[in-house]
């Protein structure tokens, strides 16, 4: 755990500039078994300290791969010099950052660390189970992973904090062939926030879930191609989460708004049907902790929920302190940095469409000819809101009943057009948090939501 060697350095912060001093320890542990071969077996521990100084509208930043009082002083010096350099050459003459609530959040959880043997033994037992029970698979991959970010933040004006975000997952990839010999794959990530040993006590607990995954793969073997064109579909929670994150969330990040994203021209305007509400949650949602809770961001802002769409109207952006001042909004704690050597960027935390009042079975029953799209293996969106998501598991809906499984397909559209077609939203939401969001730096994020009924373009073969 990081010792507090940073508080004494507050006395040397430049008196008139906003200053952040952050110590960080990032860990990752991982093993990968490909068809029983242990191809990955590694541990990584990366730590250091960084400082960022705001002066006249630009930042100076510096980091050092060493967590010591001397390194803290060195990065403060270098960040100040860099801020002075920028102030001399590019003086924007901007005012100081807005004042935010102060305080000091203390680390509340233990940070556990399992031996590598724990990951290897767990993955091996899962792999043995699959190899023995399902010998006809074309290939299989099992990976066990844990990553954590412990941060100690000391700030000139705002909330000091000592936080840790730890998460662990087991990934299972199963490969087979269709009856015509085309390769097919399905994967599932199990786990969530917390240490590996807390999330995975007994490999046998995963066996029934792997059986379900295998069953889906067998359905996909007999799968059919979707008919191309605009269709009525039910998007499952994962697809809804992907839509919330990729196609809407990124376009409302204030740095991208300033770069000309579609949200720049739509604040206060209807961008979805009236039943759609979308929020970037900080740490609590629907009465429970979010999958990856954020309490204080890396600019010392106490985290709160950021409403993005309310009753179909675009009501806000995701901000850091500087962009919040620019847009006259409140910062909600969206400035997050990945490694000790990274500066905070505007990032999502736990982004979801809010549940509605419909029952999933009624929604499926309401579709005469369409699709129920469950899982995605990738997704991309443009700052224009145009999106494309791969669909790796889904079913036909014919006359209100689920039909054959689908082979891999894609859906595409423009978010603020497509969201206006949403006419039913289920009453239950699920979260997904095993991936990374990419934007200069990677970042763990949560995304989710209920099932929604909407119209979307679906690719065929």
């Amino acid at each position, binding site marked *: 755990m990081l010792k507090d060697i940073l508080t004494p350095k507050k006395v040397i912060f430049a008196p008139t500039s906003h200053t952040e001093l952050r110590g960080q320890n990032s860990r990752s542990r991982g093993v990968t078994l490909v068809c029983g071969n242990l191809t990955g077996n*590694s*541990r990584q521990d990366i730590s250091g300290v960084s400082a960022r100084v705001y002066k006249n509208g630009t930042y100076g930043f510096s980091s050092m791969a060493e967590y010591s009082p001397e390194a803290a002083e060195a990065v403060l010096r*270098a960040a100040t010099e860099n*801020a002075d350099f920028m102030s001399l050459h590019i003086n924007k003459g901007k005012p100081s950052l807005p004042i935010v609530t102060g305080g000091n959040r203390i680390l509340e959880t233990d940070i556990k660390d399992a031996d590598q043997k724990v990951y290897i033994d767990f993955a091996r037992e899962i792999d043995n189970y699959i190899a023995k029970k399902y010998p006809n698979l074309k290939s299989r991959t099992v990976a066990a992973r844990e990553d954590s970010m412990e941060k100690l933040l000391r700030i000139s004006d705002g909330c000091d904090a000592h936080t840790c975000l730890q998460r662990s997952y087991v990934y299972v990839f199963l490969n087979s062939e269709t009856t015509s010999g*085309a390769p097919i794959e399905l994967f599932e990530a199990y786990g969530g926030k917390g240490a590996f040993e807390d999330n995975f006590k007994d490999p046998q607990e995963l066996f029934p879930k792997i059986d379900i995954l295998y069953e889906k793969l067998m359905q996909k073997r007999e799968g059919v191609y979707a008919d191309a064109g605009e269709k009525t579909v039910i998007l499952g929670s994962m697809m809804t989460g992907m839509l919330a994150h990729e196609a809407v969330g990124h376009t409302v990040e204030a*740095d991208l708004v300033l770069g000309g994203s*579609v949200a720049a021209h739509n604040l206060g305007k209807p961008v979805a049907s009236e039943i759609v509400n979308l929020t970037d949650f900080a740490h609590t949602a629907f009465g429970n902790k979010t999958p990856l809770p954020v309490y204080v961001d890396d600019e010392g802002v106490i985290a709160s929920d950021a409403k993005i769409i309310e009753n179909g109207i675009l009501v806000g952006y995701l901000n850091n302190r500087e962009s919040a001042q620019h847009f006259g909004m409140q910062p909600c704690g969206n400035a997050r940095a990945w490694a000790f050597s990274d500066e905070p960027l505007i990032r999502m935390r736990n982004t979801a469409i809010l549940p509605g009042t419909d029952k999933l079975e009624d929604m499926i029953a309401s579709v005469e000819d369409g699709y129920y799209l469950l899982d995605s293996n990738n997704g991309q969106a443009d700052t*224009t809101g145009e999106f494309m998501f791969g669909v790796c598991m889904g079913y036909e809906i014919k006359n209100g009943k689920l039909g054959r499984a689908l082979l891999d397909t894609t859906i*595409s559209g423009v978010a603020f057009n497509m969201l206006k077609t949403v006419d039913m939203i289920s009453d239950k939401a699920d979260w997904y948090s095993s991936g990374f969001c990419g934007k200069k730096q990677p970042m763990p994020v949560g995304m989710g939501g209920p099932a929604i009924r909407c119209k979307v373009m679906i690719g065929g073969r």
Partner: protein
Amino acid sequence: MEKYKRIAEDILKKAKELGAEVAHCSVRESETNEFNVDGNEFSLFRTLFDRGVTVTVFVENKKGSVSINRFDDESITQAVQNAVSAAKSSNPDTAWEIAKNIGEKHFKRGALVPDREKLFFRTKELLEDIKNRHPLIIVEQMIVTHTSSKGVYMSTTGNTYFSESGRYNAELMYSAHEGEKATSFFGSDVTVADLDKPFIDCAFIERELTDIENQLDSAPTEGKFTGTVIFTPGCLVGTVFGNICDNFASDSVLLDGTSLWKDKLGKQVADERINVSFKPSDERIVCGQVYTGEGFIAEDFDFIKNGRLNSFLLSQYVANKTGNERAKNSSFSIVIEGGTTPLEEMIKNVKKGVIVGRFSGGSPGTNGEFSGVAKNGFFIEDGKIVSALSETMISGNLADMLNNLVDISKEILIDGTVVAPYMAFDGITVSGK
């Protein structure tokens, strides 16, 4: 360099004392100076002092690996212990192998010391050039860096490599805007060893900015047709050959046996005009790879020669597992040979098709089937560009496509990391509204 050498020697000594029969490690430090622009304005200047240690050990043919970024004795000792412990918990596998008896080598490349003032000048100049020459462009983000690194690689198998390198890089993401009209975003990138030329004159930056400005008035293609697709060099490298490498020739697909090309070595897999190599020592590549992660000296090699598959892209480990040869380097310094036809001529020869600047789609499966949105592109009909594209999808099969080559351009992108032309393929399905 002596400091890194001492640490590396200490690591290998400790590993042997703890029971490792074979071990290798790298010890390195780097400095990065970086200017950031957001929304057309300078936002940040950062300086990073980084270091890294990677230790890999083999105990009874079992492998363990640990990475840290500290040089102190306690952290080094702990890292070696953790690597040995991880190895002992692992599975024995006789396929693990690292390079032997190459000896001592010294590598020095690029601009080792940053010229911060000139880097700032070139960054500001690029921003001003874009504002003056391309007023409709908004630079969403620009990151301009100088990175230098030095360090030592050492193995118990008799190899010690000293390396120093430094390079400049400019990456920019931008889109064009006019009122509420906006294009899709696009990224340009260049890596250089010196700052002699303005960035806008490097690689295809000027050409790409012009293309994006010309995409403001876009429309979907009508209906569905099978036609010609011209991939820009960037899209050809990332979308076409990036996926071909991963799906047909990489470690994972040869190891799990899902590669369509697993029995194609030495056989025709593409049109005979297609030549693709990996050449980290090519003079057009800046600071290319000098040794692989397994300690082999990086050498240039042909991947596809006159349409024949000349080599897989395998590590020594997977080469041993599958009975193939390892690739002579593990970089992505891809060099795709150009042709003789000017791009303008290639466009004139297209009856109906599209130019694709960026592909937004999922990774194709191991069967090579791809489907996704054609971004930053143009619709061509009867040899003329009719309009820019929006909401248009393309789909096809990568393996089949290589045998449906129409032409290769004379114009070649040289961006310091890759060398590639435009390439046109027939038989691609294009679907609009």
